[in-house]
């Protein structure tokens, strides 16, 4: 009996770990610059994030969006069309001190902003972005997190501002 309890006790963490690994983990890595800068790394299982996001009240988000809400249907269709279109650089804005580049690479929309002292990279999985918008034109945060499962093993957001560094990546 003791053996069975031990086996079960050993199996549960393995199963939990394997499930978390199979469904994905978002790593939030914040590094503060300077000699006394701190570093915080927070692993967030996508399954837990999905569960938490399911409790976000959808009507509240919709009311916050105001007039933008009526354009959600159009945005979804544009995202779908973008997902099916060939890869390429979509937008490049070059100014004296700043460059903004938006490019489509595979299933990802990459936004890169480089300035004098800062660099920002945002990679938006198109699948996930499209799933945020429900067919009825409402926002679904849980679906957005679910969509991130299609975008694993990449960096979602990376911000370098001087010595400070923030990175959110999916494993």
């Amino acid at each position, binding site marked *: 009996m003791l*053996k*069975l309890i*031990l*086996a*079960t006790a*050993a*199996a*549960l963490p*393995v*199963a939990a770990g*394997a*499930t978390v*690994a*199979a*469904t*994905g983990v978002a790593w939030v890595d914040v590094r503060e610059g300077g000699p006394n800068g701190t570093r915080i790394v927070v692993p967030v299982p996508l399954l837990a994030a999905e569960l938490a996001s399911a409790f976000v009240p959808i009507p509240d988000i919709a009311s916050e969006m105001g007039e933008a809400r*009526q*354009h959600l*249907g*159009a945005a*979804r*269709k*544009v995202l*779908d*069309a*973008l*997902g*099916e*279109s*060939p*890869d*390429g*650089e*979509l*937008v*490049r*804005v*070059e*100014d*004296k001190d700043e460059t903004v580049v938006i490019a489509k690479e595979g*299933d990802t929309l990459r936004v890169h902003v480089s300035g004098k002292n800062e660099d920002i990279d945002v990679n938006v999985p198109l*699948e996930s972005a499209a799933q945020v918008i429900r067919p009825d034109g409402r926002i679904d945060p849980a679906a957005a997190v679910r969509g991130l*499962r*299609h975008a694993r093993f990449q960096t979602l957001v990376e911000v370098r501002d001087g010595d400070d560094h923030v990175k959110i990546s999916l494993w």
Partner: protein
Amino acid sequence: MNRTALAGVGAALVVAGVVGLGVAQARTDGASAAETTGPSGAPAWLHVRVDEHGKSSKVRVNVPLTVVEAALEAAPSQIVDKGRIKIDLGHDRHDGDEGHDLSLAQMRKIWQSLKDAGDTEIVSVEQEDETVKVARKGDLVQVRVSKPSGEEEVQVDVPVSLVDAVLAGPGDSVDVKMVIRELRARRGDIVRVNDKDSAVRIWIDESAAGEAR
């Protein structure tokens, strides 16, 4: 002990495997959907270039025409209704100012009578501070705005076929589908605007990066 432990770990792996398979299946579905809906042949791209003379700032926009179509077709009904964009050129203003704009129907009428006339000056408005001329030259409709000094301030060139598509159909609205059809078939410049401060060029080709011309 070994057997029960193995059974426990095995059960754990089965649970993980089922979840993993679910994820893998979802990813495969996504990939195959992207492959089957991908464009065949060379897709058309709409390019916009804005360069400011004497400044380092520039804007480059390259959009697949399919995305432009999706945006136009999916535009809210107050912008696009039944495939047509309602145009208000100010001819029915209620603020007491009659305005100088022509209605789309009036423009359409004028265009129909002028487009077969070959190369001709369509409009010439000479004012104290500037002169506006609209003329047809070959396959282009040219708009020129110049100052009395003779310096050309603004040049706009639009293909005749695009003007045709914009002015096709009845009423005070533009048939979006007709314009899309024209854009789909067109390769080359759509609009060129040059003034003393900047140059804007909009064109369609089959290159994602857009050829520098």
